[in-house]
């Protein structure tokens, strides 16, 4: 009997042996674990805000991405006089693989992509009513990032052929650790464009018309129009641009100057990076402006060769001002002003250019009408007839220093100084750090 009592008592410690594994799952308090972050409707929406907060980093849509497009294409029209080495390399086309601004653009872009991938992977937890909107916003951000990645790091898109030149790696799954699959290869430029267009079409279908400062249907369509234009797909370009214009959600401001240096979105803005101190700032101001407005000493000078492009009476020329011994841009004089990424004027120009290239029947309005809409808003007398070159010039003047220059040069096959549009020096090298860490990329080096 006693033996049985002893044996029962003995078995107690053995029972303890079957303890729960759950005991070892503790939750952190200073951070949120992945499971929690993607585990509820409220949290996923927080992660979506998180994606925007990574997207407004000065290294990308806080401004540098726009600046770099201008520096790459600006030779002969602007002059870089700043002391920072990294932008100087971009201007003089001596970009080394260790350039930190290039690395920042790469790293920051993929941080946003990973966040969007996380959101897209966890949509079931989002409330039914909001699911489309959340997915649409994540897809829009992801598409915007991939579009700019491929425009900067890949050779230009050639209309009419399958673009097999190396683009950037397309990552669509959230990172859950590092394994062999993390060492990705570059996809082709064509594949990236296809992904971008797929994402934007899906986004446009899912996004609501009205979404405050966040991505909306109009932003998705507007970006889509831009993508089609870059591809040389003028038919789709004019159709999509037309959709945005005829939605009547956006209106051109009467005074051109009112479009810029605003803290908040204007009726003309289709999508802009919101800047809120102290967590963010407008880095275009840093480089294009002077200390009086929060900029550096005056890193970018506007040369006469650019200013002489404007016809007399052009209100757009009035924005330029003299500061610290040179002419400055004037569109970026607010350190905490929103960074306007897409505005309505661009849609008119896309529609006009696509229409005139394809000829009648025109979609939406005649190229002349669209041209005059922009032209007269700039304070000039309306034209009676218009050519393709007129429209291209109008686009250049209207959208000057807003991050379009190099991309327009490449699609129009123009030159930058002595470099032709498809010179490899006009393409960002894959950062050296990335090549070293991921040898798979080395096998597809951009000739640089």
């Amino acid at each position, binding site marked *: 009997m*006693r033996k049985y009592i*002893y044996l029962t*008592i*003995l078995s*107690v*410690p053995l029972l*303890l*042996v079957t*303890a729960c594994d759950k*005991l*070892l*799952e*503790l939750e*952190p*308090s*200073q*951070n*949120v*674990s*992945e499971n929690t*972050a993607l585990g509820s409707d409220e*949290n996923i929406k*927080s*992660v979506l*805000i*998180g*994606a*925007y*907060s*990574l*997207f*407004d980093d000065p290294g990308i849509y806080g401004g540098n991405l726009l600046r770099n497009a201008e520096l790459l294409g600006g030779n002969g029209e602007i002059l870089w006089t700043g002391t920072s080495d990294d932008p100087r390399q971009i201007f003089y086309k001596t970009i080394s693989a260790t350039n930190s601004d290039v690395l920042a653009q*790469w*790293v920051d872009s*993929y*941080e946003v*992509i*990973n966040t969007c*991938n*996380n959101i897209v992977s966890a949509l079931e937890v989002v409330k039914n009513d909001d699911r489309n909107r959340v997915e649409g916003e994540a897809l829009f951000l992801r598409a915007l990032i991939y579009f700019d990645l491929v425009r900067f790091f890949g050779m230009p898109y050639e209309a009419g052929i399958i673009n097999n030149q190396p683009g950037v*790696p397309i*990552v669509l799954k*959230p*990172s859950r*650790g*590092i394994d062999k699959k*993390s*060492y*990705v290869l570059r996809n082709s430029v064509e594949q990236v464009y296809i992904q971008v267009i797929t994402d934007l079409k899906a986004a446009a279908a899912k996004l609501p018309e009205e979404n405050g*400062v966040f991505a909306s249907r109009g932003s998705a369509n507007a970006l889509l129009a831009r993508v089609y234009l870059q591809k040389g797909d003028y038919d789709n370009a004019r159709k999509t641009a037309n959709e945005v214009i005829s939605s009547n959600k956006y209106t051109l401001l009467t005074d051109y100057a009112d479009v810029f240096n605003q803290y908040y979105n204007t009726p003309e803005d289709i999508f802009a990076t*919101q800047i*809120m101190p102290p*967590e*963010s700032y407008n880095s275009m101001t840093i480089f294009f402006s002077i200390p009086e407005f929060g900029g550096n000493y005056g890193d970018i000078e506007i040369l006469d060769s650019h200013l002489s492009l404007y016809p007399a009476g052009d209100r757009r020329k009035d924005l330029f001002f003299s500061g610290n011994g040179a002419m400055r841009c004037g569109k970026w004089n607010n350190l905490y002003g929103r960074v306007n990424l897409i505005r309505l004027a661009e849609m008119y120009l896309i529609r006009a250019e696509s229409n005139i290239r394809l000829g009648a029947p025109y979609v939406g309005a005649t190229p002349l009408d669209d041209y005059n809409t922009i032209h007269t808003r700039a304070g000039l007398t309306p034209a009676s007839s218009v050519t393709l070159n007129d429209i291209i010039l109008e686009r250049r003047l209207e959208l000057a220093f807003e991050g379009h220059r190099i991309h327009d040069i490449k699609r129009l096959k123009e030159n930058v100084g002595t470099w032709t549009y498809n010179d490899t020096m006009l393409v960002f090298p894959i*950062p050296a*750090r*990335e090549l*070293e*860490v*991921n040898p798979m990329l080395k096998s597809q080096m951009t000739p640089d």
Partner: protein
Amino acid sequence: MQRILFFLFVFSGLALQMTAQQKPITGVATGAKDNQTFTSLEPDESGLDEDIIVGYGSQNKSYVTSSISKVDGEKLMNKPVPTIELALQGKSAGVFIEAVNGKSTAFSRVRIRGTSSIYATSQPLFIVDGIPVTVDALNLSGAAINPLASINFNDVESVEILKDAASSAIYGSRGANGVVIINTKKGFSGDTKINFSFKSGFSDPSHRREFMNADEYISYLREAAVNGDLQEDKAYGYSPGTISFWENYVETKLKNFSGWAAITDKNGNYLGSKVDTDWQDLAFRRGTIYSADLSAQGGNDKLRFYAGGSFNSQEGILVSNGIEKASGRLNIENKANKFTDVGFSLALSRTAINQVPSDNFYSNPLQLVALSPITPPRDEYGELYNRPVTAYYNSLLDVEYATVKITEYRSLVNGYLNFNLFNGMKWKNELGFDLYNLKENARYGEKTDAGTGVNGYGFANSGQNQNITGRSYLDYTNIFGNLDVSGILGTEYQYVTSETLYAEGQEFPVDALKTLASANNISGASSTLTKYNFLSYFSRVNLVYNAKYLLTLTCRVDGSSRFGINNQYGFFPAASIGWIVSKEDFFAGVPVINFLKVRSSYGVTGNADISDFGHMGLYDAGSYNGISGLIPGQIQNPDFKWETTKQFDAGIDFGLYGNKIYGEIDVYHKKSNGILLPVQIPATSGFSVQMQNTGSIQNKGFEILLTSNNLSGNITWNTSLNFSVNKNKVLDIGGQDIIDNGGIRYMNVVKKGYPIGVFYGAEYAGVDYYNGDALWYINERDANGNIVNPDETTNVFDDVNFVFLGNPNPDYIGAITNTFGYKGVEFEFTFQGVAGNKIHLIGDQWMASNGVWYDNQLKSQLKSWKNTGDVTMVPQARFAWDNGNQSRSSRYLSDGSYLKLRNVTLSYEFPQTLTNKINLSRLKIFFEGQNLLTFTQYEGWDPEVSADFLVNNIYSGCDFYSAPQPRSVVFGINISF
């Protein structure tokens, strides 16, 4: 030279012991060499008949097959040191203990058989009465305080140090760096013994450096200024003597730095200063020490107890530094009935600390040495001077107008309930709490650096650690004929939470208002919380056959919240065998050797000092447009786990002449794998870095312990000697070749194939005798890595190639203790030393920089090159022109070997006949001295140093205005009745 001295001491000690043993033991019949009954007349130094604690149990020492070192609590008592590690210095072979500096709250580096990690801790696991105590420092000001300071070591019965894998595998994923088990005193059956002791004394800094006095400073700075201007002339192509910019600058500075003490002629030219301030002296002070202990120990067959209380105060040798401890302990054991044992122990301690800043702050008192001797400390009104009269911040302002007080409360509570189930089977249950509370209040007045411009600054910080451990296990002991079997099998669970709360404020109306309630601006606040747990299963089997064949098998399974899902549980097995050769029949006739055991062990242990949530994907807070959001902050690592150490050990234990001479020799080989390192990952993942278990480090070496009773009789003389060698090598750092984050200042790097923390910098070649330029060896390498033109030098630092200059960790450590007794008088002294290491004198780039700026210089700089043909190692003094003061050079690397007279004890115990008359069982008076002598070639304050704001596995052996160890003496009295 010091290394030779060191070896001489060690080996003369050995030789002495050997020669003292030519006489055979007399007085006892010695037929068989039976180690069960010892034949020496003196208490046995070998301890072979005692039990030692082995982790979850105890074992007779002669049957132990692993490498364990035991230190008796008596050897630690009364030492005039603030923490238990310092009392353990030199007492155990292979255990390197170094106080990082001489502050009373200094942390100690403890290394058992070398450094085995890069980013995780290399400190051993500390167990107090079965509780793995928390060793996190939760204070914000100054360097991390020593968390073990709150443990009163006068309560300690013994300390066992588990060194090899077989002994520490029972602690599984936390045993890789060895285990220090501290056991407190228990009661005994018999009349209550009451013990009272009181001691008092003082400490002084053990060494001062020689700085220039006022006259030397003035003439040296002027000389440097003249040469600085000559450099300007050369740079601009002017004729020498044209530019006098620096000379004028220096004259202005000299006048400004002198304050009211400036002596000028009628034209306002500076002539000198009325004062000659010894700033080093103002940083130091004599600190008083006193302490009182009272304990009672006793009981009967059923109930035994130990109760003790103590109060301890030690002022530090740096002004304003000090530590005060009050603690009490109660240990109770009760034989409740025939088959139940119950026990309880409670220790409460309160430690109050006056904290000083860490070494790199201007407010570190020792940084006062940079101030000029021509500057009077106070102005005409008696107020302390500050910039611009003082060259840098006058840290005496912090002493006068700032208070930083840290108060720690620690409760260690332990209870056990054991059942004797049936023959030899016990069921033990234990539960322990380590509750640690820290309160830190800092208040900086308006005149201090931290409080200036904001009308005073203050912060309040509180931290709390709750550490709960519980275990339940079966303990079986039985004898089956010739086979002794004992074993344990059980489970343990530990849960730790750590939280902090912090607030800071500015804009106080007056300095006298101390608390944040009076701050008009609460400028910051934060709270943190983290937790982790361990769930473990362990078992051990000990077999002793015929009292001479020994086998121990251990295994532990640890699961932890810190480990990733792919590695949730770790398995840590170990095996050790032993053979007591001397018990064999064939050994019976062997002379001299009465005990001989050979043993060997091999096992796997782990290091789980890894981040609490390192395996998880984590999101941090972010915001956009004023709305908060969550952004991915850490990438998941499902493989994240402990670092693993595999260790092999082989040893011989021997006793000669009936254990009059006893020794242990061990050789070991430790290989640590899976060292956590930050690895660069493809940015396409959305992250750039992931901590991965990829590195590898190796330690190998040997240890010798030798004790002997040299004389027994009226005069007794015992010697104990330990010596060890450890060679450390980094084998793999995740595919990288070198980790060098030293910038232009620090030389320690992690380099494949070299010891961790090896110094990597420029090799200083001396001074160009032609023009006084500092020179370095270019050390250019060819394609194979060999140095071409080893003798070529250059005066352009940027052209120099770095080479490996030395090891911050000593290769050899050892200590020798001699104890003499004569009729109640006991005299014991310990010499302890290290050899083979170098120290980087980082602070010297400012105080031994041949006058490059206006910091006061060491007298050694007076030997600067002056004229063509001068042969000296000190370059020409040039104000504002770098000339050899680059930090990463062997100019600032000094030999760190030392031999210290660690401890001297002289005591007299009054004869029983006298004490019985006054009803006392014992009356003893004693004198204790600590760090009385240091023999070293080291040029800095103290070769026992590792700058406290830097110290980790990589950055050791750095001196950055680090205070020397205190030299302490105390007198005391010990009464028992």
